[in-house]
Structures are given as C-alpha cells and as structure tokens.
C-alpha cells in the first residue's frame, strides 16, 4: 500500500508535482499514466525517499520510506534514471545491495537467474545494453522479494523482445499477488497490465479510475459510419434521444448513441438499403488523449505565459 497525500514538489521555480493525492492499493497493478514531464518520476522519487516533498507526504505501508527498517523487503524499485555504478559487475552491484539487509549470496544468484543475466553477471555493468541494464535494475528491485514493486517506465528504450519480457514479468508479479505501481506514457501498455489507473498531467491528478472505466468512456465515444441509399431519410429515422447524426465525408453519416445492429434494424424497418455500416471504436490511446489533452494544452499556454512574466520582470 502506497499513500500519497497532498504531495507538492517544487524545484526552484518549477512546480513538478502539485498537491497530488492518490493510493496504490495492495495486490493489484496500478498504472501511473501521464505525458512526459507530468511529474511521474518525481512522485516516485518522493515515495522512495530520494526527494523530499516541498509539502505533503508519501508513505509505504503506513511509514515514510526513510523510516523503513528493511526497505528492500517492503518495496523494490526500478528508477528511470540508471542507479548502477558502471564499473561494478552485476553480481557485485546486487551483492553490495543485498549485504545491507543481510540477504545471502544464493538470493543474489537467484534474482540474476530470474532476469536472465547469469552469463554476464560478472561483466562490468557499464558494458550492458539498455535492455540488460533494465533487467539488472529489475533484479535489484526484486532482491528483497518485496510485496510492493515500483517501476518507472520499465519499457523505455527496449526492443520488442524486451517489452514482451517486461509484460510477462508484470503478469507474473500480479499473479503472485504483489502490489505493482507502474509508470508509463503509453496507454496501450497500461491497458494490457494495469487494473487501476492514476492519470496525471502537469503534476496534477487528472483521473483516479479503473481501466474498465476508461474503456467504457472510450466506447461511449464510439460511432458508427453509415452509407445508405437515402441518407436524409435514414438520418431522420435514426434521430432521437441521446443520438447524434452528423454528415460525414463523401455523403456518409456519423452516428453516435446507437449500435450498428440498432441502425441495421431501423434501416430494415424503413426499407432503406445500407451500403456501409462500420462501427468505429475510439482507441484507448484516444481516450487517454482526451483525458490528458487539456493538461497538455495548459502546459503550452502556461509556457508562453511564463515567458511573458519574464519579459515583465526584465522590464
């Protein structure tokens, strides 16, 4: 269980996280979604005690991270930025971390095996590819067999094989009943793995919802494209409460609020010949964009306003 309570983080003039509150519930995968620069990494760093919040607080299992006596057993983390000395081997990196908690060498070998780095375990981490580096980071996160795992953009920069590997890993962790908190800027990645979603933009909470709700919202925005012999008659027949019919491109109709079978039934009743009946679902990606779109726009607007402020100060 991770609790973020009214966390605000300011770096100089820049407000990275703005009064953010949410909970990561135990035993499920929670996605942390937002465009780049939305404050996801900062929030995770605050949770992990690396950055002190300007105000508010974050707790892990009811305690501040800094007060955990065995943090590696409670929460494991993969940060977006590398956190490995390039001169040290994978094995010695993990051994150094393990020894702080009295975790023995066999567990170190076990997690190296688990992420598939056994063959390169004694090579300098600096020689690792991006994917191998991510695997080593995940090995470090799993070292203490924690019940909670935080992963910041785990798929970033990985090839398709690496992304598939991460996806399988997440499914495994979820199956084992671990609490997983996972950040991404890709909705499609989230939809595959996460159950709950925390969506942020410009450091603020935009939505705290389930994937099912987002999918439902996406389907609410679904429409059906219809081409018919008598388009105007059909449009009249279709119109009703909660139904909008708009003229589409090349004489077609865009119908919202009715399903394709409904439209087909109405057309049959009115004896209108249909030429095309195509349901078009809004993708999750579109649903996400419509959620975060306003915050992205706000950011662009704010940037120009900030520039204006600077001019005013200069004057």
């Amino acid at each position: 269980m991770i609790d973020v309570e009214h966390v605000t983080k300011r770096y100089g003039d820049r407000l990275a996280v703005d009064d953010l509150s949410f909970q990561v519930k135990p035993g499920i995968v929670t996605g942390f979604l937002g465009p780049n620069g939305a404050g996801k990494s900062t929030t995770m760093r605050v949770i992990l005690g690396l950055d002190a919040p300007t105000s508010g607080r974050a707790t892990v299992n009811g305690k501040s991270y800094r007060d955990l006596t065995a943090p590696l057993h409670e929460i494991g983390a993969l940060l977006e930025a590398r956190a490995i000395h390039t001169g040290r081997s994978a094995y010695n990196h993990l051994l150094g971390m393990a020894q702080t908690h009295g975790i023995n060498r066999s567990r170190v070998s076990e997690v190296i095996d688990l992420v598939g780095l056994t063959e390169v375990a004694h090579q300098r981490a600096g020689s690792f590819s991006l994917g191998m580096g991510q695997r080593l980071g995940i090995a470090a996160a799993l070292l203490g067999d924690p019940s909670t795992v935080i992963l910041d953009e785990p798929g970033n920069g990985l090839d398709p094989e690496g992304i598939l590997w991460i996806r399988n890993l997440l499914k495994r962790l979820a199956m084992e009943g671990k609490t997983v908190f996972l950040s991404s800027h890709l909705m499609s990645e989230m939809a595959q793995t996460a159950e709950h979603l925390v969506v942020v933009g410009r450091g603020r909470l935009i939505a705290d919802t389930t994937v099912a709700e987002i999918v439902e919202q996406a389907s609410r925005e679904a429409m059906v494209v219809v081409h018919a012999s008598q388009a105007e008659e059909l449009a009249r027949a279709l119109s009703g409460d909660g139904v909008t019919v708009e003229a589409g491109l090349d004489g077609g109709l865009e119908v919202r609020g009715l399903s394709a079978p409904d439209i087909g039934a109405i057309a049959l009743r009115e004896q209108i010949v249909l030429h095309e009946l195509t349901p078009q679902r809004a993708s999750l990606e579109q649903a996400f964009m419509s959620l975060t779109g306003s915050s992205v726009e706000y950011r662009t607007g704010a940037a120009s306003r900030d520039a204006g402020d600077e001019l005013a100060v200069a004057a």
Partner: protein
Amino acid sequence: MSALAPTVVPRRAGVTVPGVTFPRVVLSEWTKLWSLRSTRWVLLVSFIAMAAPGPIISAVQMGRWAHLTLHDRVTFDSIDAGVGGWHLAQLGIGVLGVLIISGEYSTGMIRSSLMAVPRRLPVLAAKVLVYAGVTLVLMLIATLISYFVTQAIVTEHHIQHGISAPGALRVVIGNILFLTVLGTMCVGLGAWVRNSAGGIAAFVGLIFVLSGLIDILPANIGNAVMPYLPLNAGTGVATHHFDNSHHLSPWGGFALFCGYALIILLGAAITLMRRDA
C-alpha cells in the same frame, strides 16, 4: 536472454533477521570498495607510492654520498627520508577518497545506496570507516617497509635511526595517521561537493594550492597564517626536521587537521541528509 523462469520465488528467501544494521552497511561498503577495478589500482599505486620513494631516494643519495656537500650530508634526515613517500601517496589517497562517493553521484549508484539505506547517514559513516580502515592498514604496512628499508640502506654511512630514536616512532605513526585522516577528509569533500571533478579540485585546492597563495602575501602575514593551513597542520606530526620555525606542535597541528576533517564531514553529513539524491 531467456524468458522469465517459471519458478515462484519463496517469500524473503535467504534472509535470517531482515533489515538494515550498521555492520551490514559496513560489509556492503567493503564489497563496494573492492569490487571496482579502479579502486584496487589506486590503492596499489598509493601503497607503492608510500613504500618506494624513501628507499629509492636514500639509495641514490648514498650512492653519490662522496659528491654531496657537507650541508647536504648534515641535513639528510633518515627519519624524514624514511617516510618521504607521503608526498606522493597523499595524492592517491585523497583522490580515491573523493571518488568513492562522488563516483556514486556521477553514475547514479547513490540512488541505489540510499534506497537500500534510507536513513542515509550510515552510508557515509560506513564509507568513512571502511576507507579509513583500509588506508590505515595499507599505509601502516607501506610506511613500515619504507622506514626500515631506508634505515637499512643508510646504515653504510652510519646515519640510520632506529624506531626508538627520538621522534622516530612519532613520525612513523604520525605519517600513517595523517594519510588516514586525509583520506577521511576527502570522502567528506566528495560527499559535500557530490561531483568528481569538483571534489578533486576542492582537495587539490585545500591541500596544495592554498600554500602557494599564502606565499605571495607579505611575509609577516604569511608566516602567521602558514602553520594553520591544512597540509602544514597535518604533516607536522609526520615531520622530523623542520625547515623553518613557523609551525605548530606536531600533535597540536594534527589535532587541528582532525578538526578540519571533522568540519568537512559535518558539512557532508548535512548535505547528505538535506539534499535530494
């Protein structure tokens, strides 16, 4: 790369009493120190730098003894020559002291260290303890080798000093302690500045550059300030024969040097606790 192994990991596998303890953090820092190739090299070079110059310079001087002026013969001090390697060794010990912590900041390793030990201060304390211990043991051995080999070499001209000669033991012990405290001070500089280039610059500036600056001040001011510079205060205890009279008492100077180190470590500790990693 194989796919994820299908075995289910038992909870808290391989753990006796879970949790961070200071001895465990010390063991971790011990592993971290020795598992870097660069560290092992610098320690080896520092060892040789401490052990070799005294005997080598003494051997050269003895070889050309007949050509030395009377003044040179009289001022050749086999005690100072016996620990003369510190001039070289201090560079390696100081630079490595900075790097063992600044290297964690430049690579991002510090985040792993602080996630494992979120109270933070034990990380700095363990680093200081491990590095001081390693420096102490290595410099002890190197200094003893240097001292006794040097005395053996100068015996041919009967200018050797046994360890029981006045001041000899103090210089040998003082030399070991000076290098150890210097290493500790530099761990503090690295932790305070959090950057390798900056930390090394701070070390070189503090230890070597300051005295050059003081040299261009008027003599009366320079002479008054000179004894209190870190290097002059710290090396008095490792010096047998002083060239001029402007110096603190050997142990008084060393105490001041320890004070400087303590202030720097305090600054490092505050920085570590307050700043974001």
